[in-house]
């Protein structure tokens, strides 16, 4: 009986520490992505609109949840957060030009975080479209995922889950930047 009381008290502490809502932190450009972009022959681009892909639940675009904790993007939507994150990566590499004729727009196709006990996983997906004027030059879905050991204790599992989730943005952009047809598509016709 005493054991159950102690366990409940400890669990309550863990829940109190973990059950909270917060704002998603600003995206930090990846050193690896910036180095890769600097070394590539990609042309500077502008960034257009990003939105939730058709048929996807609205809730996917509003917040990300880990057990009893949730985080919301300061931009109002995760698709807008994805857009700002892409701009941060491009700017850090000198590949962003708001007036460039070639623009990248996108759709959020997946944003998942499952902080189960034992093994947790997360996934992020987007459709990236490169256009110049009315001409579409690139249209490709990219998806990245991760899985990791997840603690019973929420106060340990939740920060770890968010760390893994936010790292997916860097991984998603790394996949996009590594696509040779993407770099080719960024070159203006004139």
């Amino acid at each position: 009986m005493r054991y159950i009381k102690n366990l409940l008290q400890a669990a309550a502490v863990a829940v109190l520490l973990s059950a909270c809502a917060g704002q998603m932190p600003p995206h930090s450009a990846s050193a690896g992505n910036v180095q890769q972009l600097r070394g590539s022959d990609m042309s500077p681009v502008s960034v257009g609109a990003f939105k939730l892909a058709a048929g996807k639940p609205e809730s996917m675009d509003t917040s990300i949840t880990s057990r009893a904790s949730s985080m919301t993007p300061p931009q109002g939507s995760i698709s807008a957060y994805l857009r700002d994150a892409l701009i941060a990566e491009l700017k850090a590499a000198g590949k962003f030009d708001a007036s460039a004729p070639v623009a990248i727009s996108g759709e959020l196709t997946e944003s998942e975080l499952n902080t189960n006990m034992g093994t947790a996983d997360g996934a992020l997906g987007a459709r990236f479209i490169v256009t110049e004027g009315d001409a579409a030059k690139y249209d490709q879905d990219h998806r990245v995922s991760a899985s990791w050991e997840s603690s019973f204790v929420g106060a340990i599992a939740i920060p770890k889950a968010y760390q893994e989730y936010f790292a997916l943005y860097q991984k998603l952009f790394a996949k996009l930047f590594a696509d040779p047809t993407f770099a080719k598509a960024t070159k203006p016709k004139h």
Partner: protein
Amino acid sequence: MALRSLRRSVYATVALASTLLLSGCANFYVDTGLKDVPPQDIAKPASPQDVQLIFEFRTKGVANAGATALLKDQVTQLVSESGVFARVSGTPEQSAGFLSVVIDNVPLSDDAFSKGFVTGLTFGLAGNTVTDGYVGTIEYTPAGQKKSIKTTVRHAIHTTVGAQGAPANATPSASLDEAAKTMTRHVVMNGLKTLSHDKSFISGN
């Protein structure tokens, strides 16, 4: 019997985590394998160049946005005040080189020595002492060039729980924050020292 064992395990995990989080009984020590760098040990270039700095903290190779945000200003200040570069900026410029500083918090086990870590302690989980390893990678690419100069620095923070004595070859820190900042200072300044003496770096300045 198995259920009882599982209950004990669960209780122990929760209790340990709660203890660590709430009681502040953990003590932090920075390994003495790496030390502060006296300013005169850093070679100041005759004509220092501007540089764009990117800093990233990783945990087991995975980007850690929270720790990056916590240490970014300190790393920027250390690089700015080192005298190795003229002006440090977070954005790219035509005439600026590119400096990438990445610190990765890696798990240490018995093969730590083979990974290049040198301290007087037993690594991993030894009694009530846990050691975190840090691999700092400093990479500089001069303006207009693709070939970079890379240097790697290794460091460690030891954490003891309870009323255990201080580990040997380690300096106590008042908090984890202080230990992390000391480790960061040691990693960045020792990396810059090596970079400043690199022949390729000197010839480019």
